[in-house]
């Protein structure tokens, strides 16, 4: 059995983790494998996301190793990451990403 954890980082590149149980303010959140621990800054319901690092406003929120949205406010370590501080991508955001495709490298 692994070391006890209550949050999952779905990909090593992720700046958020999913909590596997509802955590309260100040509670320690430990992520699998890594020795990453953060303290919850608020109540975070199970299945929701917590910030593992500081995510400045305008930066990408990464889950599954992919960009799942853009921070609409500065997000501190341990913050609940949800609709109040993240927005979805616009076509413009996506186009920007599409231009990065370089098929020669694959």
């Amino acid at each position, binding site marked *: *059995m*692994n*070391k*006890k*954890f209550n949050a*999952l980082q*779905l990909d090593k590149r992720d700046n958020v983790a*999913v909590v*596997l*149980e509802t955590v309260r303010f100040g509670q320690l959140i430990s992520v*699998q*494998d890594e020795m990453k621990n953060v303290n919850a800054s608020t109540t975070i*319901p*199970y*299945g*929701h*996301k917590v910030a593992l690092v500081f995510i400045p406003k305008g930066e990408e*929120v990464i*889950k*599954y*190793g*992919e*960009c*799942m*949205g853009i921070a609409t406010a500065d997000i501190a370590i341990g913050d609940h*990451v*949800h*609709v109040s501080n*993240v*927005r*979805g*991508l616009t076509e413009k955001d*996506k186009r920007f*990403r*599409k231009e*990065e*495709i370089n*098929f020669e490298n*694959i």
Partner: protein
Amino acid sequence: MKTFKGYRRANGSIGVRNHIIVINTVGELAGLTKKLANLVPGVIPVVHQAGQSQYPEDSAQTIKTLAGTAGHANVSAALFLGMGSNDPADEIVETLKKDGHHVHSILFDKDKSIIECLDEGRTWLENALEQSKKQKTEKADVSELIIGLECGGSDAWSGITANPSIGVFSDSIVADGGTSILAETTEAVGAEHILANRAVNSEVADRFLEIVRRYEQRAKAVGENIKAANPSPGNKTGGLTTLEEKSLGCIKKGGNSTLMEVIDYAYSPTKKGFVFMDTPGYDVESVVGLVAGGAQIVLFSTGKGSPTGSPIAPVIKIGTNPKLYKNMPEHIDVNAGKIIDQNYTIDQIGEEIYSKVMQVANGEVTASEKYNNQEFSIWRLAETQ
């Protein structure tokens, strides 16, 4: 090197089951198809309401699906029932025979009584069943497996536990030379750029973006905006923040492998590795397309609990949360909920899925097979004429 014991077919494909099926070409024969199957215990009826009075796009899709099902590696022999003068049964059977399949067709027509037709069918099926019992299995490599990836009755945990675990499995089998087919175009809307970014070349990327765009337009044409309606209030309560996140949770069943090909409904992959099939999000229709395209086994993640299966392919159910496994163990084959309450990692469940796939390929019965979940329905494109 991972291997399993399967049934080698004349066309070189390898089956993990050895089924005898009877299948109707048109809806009017549904009743007689079931009746005939009941006369020979062990024969599986593959019954549907398509095939009659359809526009060309639907007729073509029906024939493609029926041929793919009857000519599937898991099928030892297939009997087609048809009727009337323009029935496609004979033509499908001729094509399949050229490929070495053990198939036959019976056309109900005015020169024979129904009882005579049923008798002829029974005799053929009984012989086919006898022959199938003599077929021996042989050792085959995992690279010969095609695995369909599906989700149904999803919940907030689907994208966290089961789907990423399936993704780990998918990457592993692809690395071992096998094939995995991701499906359900509806569920990729919003994250299409991510899969397109992973395409092997710009042609595949464009094709993928095209099928997603078509889906959105079809929904819009009946007044629905998939992008505006997602994530739903229920999704948000469950922790999903953006449409991209929701869709990522679905498409992560395909792991991080390169997207080699985009194929139409019920078509077989021409490349090994990770491919995408254009199917609806409707589970049964999607699974039917995957299997008709050659998937010998389907992985199916479920959060609410869905019992559905396939008439000819074992469907492996992956439960997303511990409560589901506790409540409905009879419908779950792999409990990915252990990630939540027993500190298993996604990688560990991915490995567990891989060993389950190998066991099932070797004949282990899945939950949907045990309970005779043999749902079959072909994706319809237009209204019947």
